[in-house]
C-alpha cells in the first residue's frame, strides 16, 4: 500500500469515477481543469502542469527533474520502452518475470540486503512491466534520496538475475496466476483480451500463463534485460524535494556506466478483424453472479480522435452516475452494482470494453438493456447538456491527476512515451473545450457498435448459456481453461499456385489414387474403425531434445486421444467431434474453438485421415508439378481447403508413396499458426483389417516414423514401436475426467 497514492491508484479503470479518471492517471492521458461554473467566469488561477528541467546523459538516458518542495519526499520513476508486447507468444510473461527478478538482488547486494536497505528508511523500490513499457520506481523521504537513487540504479543497471531468484519469482508468478482464477472478473478480462487481439501480444496477460512462465529460463531473463533495459531506451523522471542540479550530478554518477545497446524494432502484428460475433462462457457453477464483458479492437493512444472519444465515453459509460449506462442499468433498473465502458489505448490499437455483472438470472436482461443504450447513443450522440457536463468534469478534475509529484512524473513519462507532444498538458484543456457535439456523434458512429463483437461471460453455464444465444453461438469452457490465444500464421505460407485446370485436377487425383493403392488400397483405409499406436517421442527445444513416450488412440470419424509423457510430466489431448479437452498431470480443462480447429487440422498428419480426406470426391486437388522434398524427387499435389491455406502433399516420384505433408498448423512451441512440414518414413505393413464384403483381410503400409518441422525448424520426431488397427479402442478413453 502506498499511503500517499492509495486513493488514486486504481489498477483497473473500473468503477465509475476511476474509469472516468483513468485517462488522467492510469493511462497516458491527462486531464482537464476548471469546472462548468469556473468556465463561465474567467478562470481565476488555472492550474498549470509544471514542465521539467531536462538533460540527456552521454549514454542517451534522458533525465527530467520536477522540483517540488511542498513535502520532504522524492520520487524516481524510470520508464523503459519495452513491455509484454515485446515478447513472443511462447515467452509470454518474460517482461514481467524480468522485472520481478531485477528487484531480487544486484551484483553487489543480495535480495534480502536490497530489501533491508530500502525498508530501513521506510522507502519503496519496485519494478513492473506493462503491455507497452516497464517501470522501475523508487521513493523515499528527501533525507534518503541518495540511497533510493543508488538502489534504483544498481537494480536497473546491475541486477544479479541469479538463478535461484529467477526460480523463486517464477514460482511466485505461477502461484499468483493460479490464484487469479479465483477472481471471476480477471478471468473474464483475460479471455476477452485473448479473443479480441488473437495473434497480437495484447491478447496475453502481462504475467503470462502458468505454462509459459514455467518455460522461462535465466537466459531468457538475462537476454530480455540486456536487450531492452538500455539507457537509450529509457527515460528517468525525478520529482519532489530536490534540486535539479544536484539530481543531474547524482544521476550521472549512478547511471553513467550504463551502456547503450541496439534496440530491436517492436513486433509487427495486427489484431484480427471480426467478421461475426464470438460468445464464450467460462463455466464456474458456484457463482451467484455472472461477470459480463463485450468488446472489440479499439484505438491507438495517438489517435487524433482521442478527445472526442474521451468525452463520448464519459457520457456513455465512463462517467459514473453521469453516464447513461449507470443511470439506466444501475440506478433505474437495479440490475447491477457497476456498469462501465472503457477504452484501453496502446502504442497499437487497444480495445473498447464494456463490463458489468449481474445475478445469473438477469444476464440477458442486463445485456439487452446495456446494448440498447449503446445503440441509442450511437444513433443520437450526446445532448448539449451531456457534452457540457463531460467537458466540465475533465476541465475541473485536471489538477487531481498531478496531486503528488510521483503522479506527475509518471504522467509526463507516459505522455512522452506515446509521443503526445511536450505541450500536451498545456493544451489539454483547450482540446477538451474544442470538441463539438458533431465530433462526438461522428466518433460514436465510427467506433461504437454492438456487433460483431466478442462476448465473454464468467458464470454458471447451466444458468446463463441459454440467455446468450441471441448474441452468437456460445462456446463453453471451464473457468480454469487457458485463454487459448493462438497467434495467426506468423510466417508466410504461400497461396495456392498450382493451375486450376481439369488436367491439373486429373493429374492430382491420379497421384492420390496411386498413393492410396501403394499403401493398401482405398477399401482397406475405409475399413479402418480405430487405431492405437505407441512409441518414443523426441521434442527438440533449441539445441537440446527431450525424450519421452507417446501414444495415440483414435476412433473414426472424429475421436482422437494423444498422450505424451516427457520428464515425468504427462499430457493428454482429446478431440471428440467439435469438442476437445486437455489434461496435464491429471488436471483436465476444456479447449476452445480455436484449439479444436488446430487439432482438427493437425489430425491430417495421420495417414488414414489424410488419405480418406484426399480420396473424397469433393476434395479440391491440383497438381503442382515435380518438386524435391526432404531430399527426394516427389510429385506435389495442392489440396485447397475452403477458408484455409492450402495443404501440400508430396508423393514419391517412383513408388507413389506418401513422403510429406505441409500445411499451416499451430506450432508445438506456442508460436501460433506456422507452416508445419511432416516427413513420413520407416513404412511397415500393419494387418488387422477385415474388408467388409470380401471377407478378406488387408494391410496398410503405415509410417512408423514422422518428423515434424515447425516454421522450418525440427520440432518433434515420433518413432512408433507398435501400431494396432481395429482392436476396439474403448470409448471411455475420450471421456473427459470429472464430467
Amino acid at each position, binding site marked *: 500500500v502506498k499511503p500517499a497514492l492509495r486513493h488514486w491508484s486504481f489498477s483497473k479503470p*473500473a468503477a465509475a469515477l476511476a474509469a472516468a479518471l483513468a485517462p488522467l492517471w492510469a493511462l497516458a492521458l491527462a486531464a482537464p481543469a476548471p469546472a462548468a461554473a469556473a468556465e463561465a467566469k474567467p478562470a481565476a488561477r488555472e492550474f498549470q502542469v509544471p514542465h521539467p528541467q531536462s538533460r540527456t546523459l552521454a549514454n542517451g538516458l534522458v533525465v527530467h527533474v520536477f522540483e517540488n518542495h511542498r*513535502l520532504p519526499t522524492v520520487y524516481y520513476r524510470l520508464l523503459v520502452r519495452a513491455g509484454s508486447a515485446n515478447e513472443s507468444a511462447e515467452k509470454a510473461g518474460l517482461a514481467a518475470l524480468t522485472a520481478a527478478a531485477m528487484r531480487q538482488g544486484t551484483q553487489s547486494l543480495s535480495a534480502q540486503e536490497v530489501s533491508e536497505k530500502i525498508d530501513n*528508511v*521506510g522507502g519503496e523500490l519496485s519494478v513492473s512491466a506493462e503491455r507497452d513499457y516497464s517501470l522501475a520506481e523508487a521513493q523515499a523521504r528527501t533525507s534518503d534520496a541518495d540511497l533510493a537513487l543508488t538502489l534504483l540504479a544498481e537494480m536497473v543497471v546491475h541486477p544479479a538475475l541469479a538463478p535461484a531468484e529467477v526460480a523463486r519469482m517464477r514460482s511466485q508468478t505461477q502461484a499468483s496466476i493460479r490464484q487469479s482464477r*479465483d*477472481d471471476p472478473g*480477471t478471468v473474464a478480462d483475460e479471455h476477452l483480451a485473448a479473443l479480441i487481439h488473437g495473434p497480437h501480444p495484447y491478447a496475453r496477460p502481462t504475467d503470462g500463463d502458468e505454462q509459459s512462465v514455467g518455460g522461462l529460463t535465466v537466459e531468457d531473463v538475462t537476454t530480455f534485460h540486456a536487450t531492452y533495459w538500455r539507457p537509450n531506451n529509457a527515460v528517468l523522471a525525478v520529482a519532489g524535494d530536490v534540486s535539479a542540479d544536484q539530481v543531474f550530478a547524482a544521476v550521472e554518477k549512478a547511471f553513467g556506466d550504463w551502456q547503450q545497446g541496439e534496440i530491436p524494432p517492436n513486433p509487427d502484428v495486427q489484431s484480427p478483424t471480426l467478421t461475426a460475433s464470438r460468445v464464450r462462457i467460462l463455466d464456474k457453477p458456484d457463482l451467484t453472479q455472472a461477470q459480463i464483458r463485450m468488446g472489440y479492437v479499439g484505438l491507438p493512444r495517438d489517435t487524433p480522435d482521442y478527445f472526442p472519444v474521451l468525452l463520448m465515453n464519459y457520457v456513455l459509460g465512463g462517467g459514473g452516475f453521469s453516464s447513461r449506462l449507470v443511470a439506466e442499468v444501475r440506478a433505474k433498473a*437495479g440490475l447491477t452494482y457497476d456498469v462501465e465502458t472503457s477504452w484501453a489505448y496502446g502504442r497499437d490499437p487497444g480495445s473498447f470494453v464494456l463490463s458489468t455483472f449481474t445475478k445469473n438470472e438477469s444476464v440477458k436482461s442486463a445485456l439487452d438493456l446495456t446494448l440498447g443504450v449503446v445503440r441509442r447513443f450511437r444513433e443520437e450522440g450526446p445532448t448539449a447538456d451531456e457534452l457540457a457536463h463531460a467537458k466540465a468534469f475533465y476541465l475541473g478534475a485536471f489538477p487531481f491527476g498531478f*496531486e503528488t509529484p510521483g503522479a506527475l512524473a509518471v504522467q509526463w513519462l507516459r505522455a512522452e512515451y506515446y509521443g503526445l507532444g511536450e505541450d500536451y498538458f498545456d493544451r489539454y484543456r483547450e482540446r477538451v473545450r474544442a470538441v463539438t457535439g458533431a465530433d462526438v456523434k461522428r466518433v460514436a458512429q465510427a467506433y461504437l457498435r454492438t456487433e460483431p463483437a466478442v462476448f465473454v461471460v464468467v458464470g454458471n453455464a447451466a444458468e446463463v448459456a441459454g440467455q446468450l444465444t441471441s448474441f452468437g453461438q456460445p462456446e463453453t469452457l471451464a473457468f480454469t481453461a487457458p485463454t487459448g490465444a493462438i497467434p495467426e500464421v506468423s510466417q508466410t505460407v504461400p497461396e495456392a499456385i498450382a493451375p486450376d485446370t481439369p488436367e491439373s485436377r486429373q493429374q492430382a487425383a491420379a497421384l492420390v489414387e496411386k498413393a492410396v493403392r501403394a499403401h493398401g488400397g482405398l477399401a482397406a483405409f475405409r475399413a479402418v474403425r480405430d487405431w492405437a499406436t505407441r512409441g518414443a517421442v523426441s521434442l527438440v527445444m533449441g539445441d537440446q531434445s527431450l525424450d519421452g513416450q507417446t501414444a495415440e488412440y483414435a476412433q473414426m470419424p472424429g475421436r482422437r486421444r494423444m498422450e505424451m509423457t516427457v520428464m515425468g510430466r504427462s499430457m493428454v489431448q482429446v478431440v471428440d467431434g467439435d469438442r476437445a479437452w486437455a489434461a496435464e498431470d491429471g488436471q483436465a480443462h476444456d479447449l476452445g474453438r480455436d484449439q479444436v480447429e488446430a487439432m482438427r487440422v493437425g489430425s491430417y498428419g495421420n495417414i488414414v485421415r489424410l488419405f480418406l480426406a484426399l480420396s473424397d470426391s469433393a476434395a479440391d486437388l491440383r497438381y503442382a508439378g515435380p518438386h524435391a522434398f526432404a531430399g527426394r524427387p516427389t510429385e506435389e499435389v495442392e489440396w485447397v481447403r475452403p477458408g484455409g491455406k492450402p495443404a501440400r502433399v508430396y508423393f514419391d516420384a517412383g513408388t507413389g508413396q506418401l513422403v510429406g505433408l505441409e500445411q499451416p498448423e499451430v506450432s508445438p512451441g506456442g508460436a501460433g499458426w506456422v507452416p508445419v512440414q511432416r516427413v513420413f518414413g520407416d513404412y511397415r505393413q500393419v494387418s488387422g483389417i477385415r474388408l467388409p464384403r470380401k471377407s478378406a483381410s488387408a494391410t496398410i503400409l503405415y509410417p512408423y516414423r514422422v518428423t515434424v518441422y515447425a516454421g522450418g525448424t525440427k520440432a518433434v520426431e515420433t518413432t512408433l514401436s507398435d501400431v494396432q488397427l481395429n482392436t476396439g479402442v474403448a470409448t471411455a478413453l475420450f471421456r473427459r475426467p470429472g464430467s
Partner: protein
Amino acid sequence: MTAAGLASRRHGRPARALAVALAIAALGGGALARAAAAAPADLLIPKEGRLANGLRVLTLEDPSAAVASFQVWYAVGSRNERPGITGISHLFEHLMFKGSKNVGPEEHSRIIQGVGGVENAYTTSDVTVYWENVPPDQLELCARLEADRMSTLRLTPENLKSEREVVKEERRYRTDDQPIGRAVEEMSALAFMAHPYQWPVLGWMSDLNAITIDDVKDYYAIHYAPDKATLVVCGPVTHDAVMRLAGQYFGKLKPGRPSPPVSTVEPEQQGERRSTVHAVVQLPVVIAGYKIPADSSSDAPALEVVSRILSQGESSRLYRKLVYEDQSALFAGGTAAPSHDPGLFYAFAAVKPGKDRAQVEDTLFAVIERLGRDGPTESEMAKAKNQAESALVFGLETVQSRAEAVGDAALIDGDPRRASRQLEAIRAVTADDVKRVVTTYLVPDHRTVVWVVPQERSGS
C-alpha cells in the same frame, strides 16, 4: 479503520488481479496507511469548532494545495445495527445518493462531477463517510449538497426497492463470489459472540431483503443529524471560512434523536476457535484473528509496530520466512485493523501449490510467537519507526488522505489530535512493549482461525 476491515465503497471496485491479496490488504490497510505522525505531523493538527446544534468542524488549512477535500463523517456503522437489519448502515449510504428536497436522484454525483469534482462514500463497522474532492472554489457547493441530504433526504419505497437490489449485487460481487470475502465474514461471525462486529458491513442477505422503509426512516432520524456528524475539510481554505459555510448551511438543522448506546462488551475468549470454508478456490488461505483492544488503547502504537515488523516490506519477518525462505506462501502478513471497540489483529497466508497447509499455519504462528519470546531486534525497531514516519509524510501528499487521517482519529480514537501525535507515540514504543503486546494479545487462546480450502471434487 474498521473491525473487519470491510469498508464497503459505494462504487469503487477493488483492483482486479489481486482481488484476494487486496481483500487481505484491506484488513490492515488502515493500520499501515494511517501511520505515524511526526515533524510534519503538525500538518495534521486540525482547527476545531462546533455549531450550536452539535456539528463538529475540523479544518486542515493547506494553502499549498491545488484542490480541496470536503468530508462528512457520521458516527454510525454496522456496530450500531441489530440482528434483522444488518447492512442497513451501508444500504443507507446508497440511499443518500437517491435525492433530497433540492436534488434529484443521483444528481449529487452529477453536480459534483459537473464542477470537476470526484466524490464517493464508504461504510465501515464504525463510521459512514461521504467525501468530495473538488476545486477549492467549490466547497460551498459541497456544504449545500451535504446539508440538503442530511436534512431532507427523499426516502421512498421505490428508491429502497431498486437500491436494495444494487446492494445485493454488491454483496454477491464482494462476498458471495469471492472466497476470501466469505472467509472474512466467517472470521467475524466466529470471533465475536456478542459484539455487533460479528456481522458483515454488507449485512446478511436475508436482512437486506427484510429491511423496511420504516427501518430506514428510523435510522435517518437517529443517525443523520448534525450532532452525530463531523465535518472534515482539507485544502487552501481557512477555518473561519469553513465555519461560516458550516453555519450557513448546517446551522439551522436540528439535532437527531438520541442514538442507542452500543453497550455490548465482547466476553473474553477462552480458547482457540476454528472454522473451514469450502470453496472453489485455487490456493488454500489461512486467516487468523487475534482479539486486540480498541484503537484508542495505549497499546495501539505497539501493535502498529508489530504489524510493520511482521508485514511491511520484503525484509519483514513473515515475508522473509514464508514467502522468501520457505517459498511456501504466495503472500503472508500480520496486521492490526484499528477499530472503535476492541477488534482483531489479522495474520494470514496463502499456500502455494504443492505446499503443506499445516506447515504454513505452524510457521505463521511460530514467527509471531518468536517475536513475543525473543522480542524485536534494535534494527527492526528503528526500521518500524522509520517506516511509520515515512508513511506519515507520504500520507500528507493528498488532501483526501490528510482529511481521512484526522477523521479516523476523531471518530475511531475519539480524539482528532491523535493523528498528529501518532508518530510520537510510535517513537516511544520500546522493544519490551512489543514483546508485551505480542505475548498479551497474539496468543492461541484469543485466536480464531479460518481456513479457505478447495472444495472436494466429486468423481476424479
